[in-house]
């Protein structure tokens, strides 16, 4: 194992040998594990600094603006300037707030997102820890985020914040259902909940075997993050800033950073479950390439999230819930049943890909017919407008 092929393992072995010279074995394991934790945990946090700049630049392009361009080349240092500003701002804790919960909530929101990175497979052999229940772990840890939002909204003792928290609970728990059910499709295709096995079994990317599930996963994940069009939890035109109305300074900054990191994490998870994770030409040989592939695929997913954000307006709360419970949930259940039966029958044959694709197509067709049928039943008579004179250019 040489340094160029696999720098991380190389360094880990070197440190183990070096420390093993004068420390007992248990301590060496502990220190190496600790270093691993620090590397994986700080990776996300360092990356988010770059992400905030990237998102602001791209969002600006979508809106025909330039975006940050003053601090540093191309405005690259803008985020650092923002961090300095946020740290030097006064930290106001409202008198009526439940202080302990109020202070824990922003920390928990960052922890919840960071914990996902513990099981992200960066490259062959490079993973924080390859839990055999990785997918379930992601689902469990993701719920911490909901808890932190509820804690923030409740403890602020502010009606807008509380409204935001209620909406958050309704939205986030609702969208967790289709997300979990569609997550079961890649688990089923890979026959494993381990993240590494998930990537290794994608000789054919799962997006080709389960395209609709991939889209449902992305949509419900966007709702989990609470980004436009699902940003009802912090809808500024309705409830000030939602759950973080009362937060100032760095505590607000933490919610902000957690949201950005979460959005990118969604992109990375999408890449792992459906786009083959680190897989790509040469990734087995040069593991750093695997990380590059994963980040590129993750950024692709992140770009779609940004794209959706810049394109769609916010939806109403009853539409949001109806879309989830009356459309996404039944559809994801149907997809799961379809994939389970077809993959059991055709799983080991060469027909797997065409049959699963045909299954997805037929589910799509049935959905479309059902939607047409219900919309025909519910559509009122078309209103006919009288033709009005319109000013035309000469």
């Amino acid at each position, binding site marked *: 194992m040489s340094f160029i092929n696999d720098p991380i393992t190389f360094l880990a072995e070197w440190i183990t040998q070096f420390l093993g010279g004068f420390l007992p074995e248990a301590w060496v394991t502990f220190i190496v*594990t600790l270093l691993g934790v620090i590397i994986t945990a700080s990776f996300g946090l360092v990356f988010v600094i770059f992400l905030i700049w990237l998102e602001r630049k791209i969002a600006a392009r979508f809106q025909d603006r330039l975006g940050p361009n003053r601090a540093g080349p191309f405005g690259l240092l803008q985020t650092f300037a923002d961090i300095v500003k946020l740290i030097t701002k006064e930290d*106001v804790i409202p008198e009526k707030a439940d202080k302990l919960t109020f202070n824990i909530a922003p920390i928990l929101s960052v922890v919840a997102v960071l914990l996902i990175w513990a099981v992200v497979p960066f490259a062959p052999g490079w993973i924080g*820890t390859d839990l055999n229940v990785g997918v379930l772990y992601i689902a469990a840890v993701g719920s911490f985020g909901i808890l932190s939002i509820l804690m923030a909204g409740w403890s602020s003792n502010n009606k807008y914040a509380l409204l935001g928290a209620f909406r958050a609970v309704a939205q986030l728990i609702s969208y967790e*259902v289709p997300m979990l059910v569609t997550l079961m499709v890649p688990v089923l295709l890979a*026959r494993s909940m381990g993240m590494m096995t998930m990537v290794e079994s994608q000789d054919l990317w799962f997006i080709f075997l389960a395209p609709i599930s991939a889209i449902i996963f992305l949509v419900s994940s966007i709702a989990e993050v609470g980004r436009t069009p699902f940003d009802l939890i912090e809808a500024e035109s309705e409830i000030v800033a939602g759950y973080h109305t009362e937060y100032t300074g*760095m505590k607000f900054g933490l919610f902000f950073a957690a949201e950005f990191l979460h959005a990118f994490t969604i992109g990375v998870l999408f890449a792992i479950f459906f786009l083959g994770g680190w897989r790509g030409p040469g990734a087995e040989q040069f593991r750093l390439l695997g990380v590059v592939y994963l980040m590129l695929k993750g950024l692709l997913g992140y770009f779609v999230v940004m794209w959706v954000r810049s394109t769609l307006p916010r939806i109403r709360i*009853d539409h949001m819930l109806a879309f989830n419970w009356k459309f996404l949930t039944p559809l994801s*259940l149907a997809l799961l049943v379809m994939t389970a039966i077809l993959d059991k029958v055709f799983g080991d044959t060469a027909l797997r890909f065409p049959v699963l694709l045909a299954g997805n197509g037929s589910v799509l067709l049935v959905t479309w017919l059902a939607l047409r049928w219900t919309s025909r039943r519910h559509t009122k008579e078309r209103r006919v407008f009288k033709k009005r004179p319109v000013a035309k250019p000469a």
Partner: protein
Amino acid sequence: MLDHWIFIGIFIAIAAVFPLLPIVLARFVAPRKPNPIKLDTYECGMETVGDTWVQFKVQYYIYALVFLVFDIETAFLFPWAVAFDALPLFAVLEGVLFILILAGCLLYCWGKGALEWS
């Protein structure tokens, strides 16, 4: 196996330290000049009326109940999906039956109007 969870345990501790650092730093750097008006609840400049922690719309609660059913369902179904290769077709169909029963539950909730907002 246990090593994995030790890693997660250390990870939780370290992950909590990262967001704590800027907050602690802000404690030393940021100014602190509290006054009663600043510490008041911010509701767009109006003085807050009544208690905030009151009873709220019951619909949120019903959604949470429906969610609970599906959450437990998925917890049961994940092992089924993992053991997929070892299962005979009959066991797979049993799992499908389980999903269909829950789909029936969803339809029941739908029919009862539990999924309507107003």
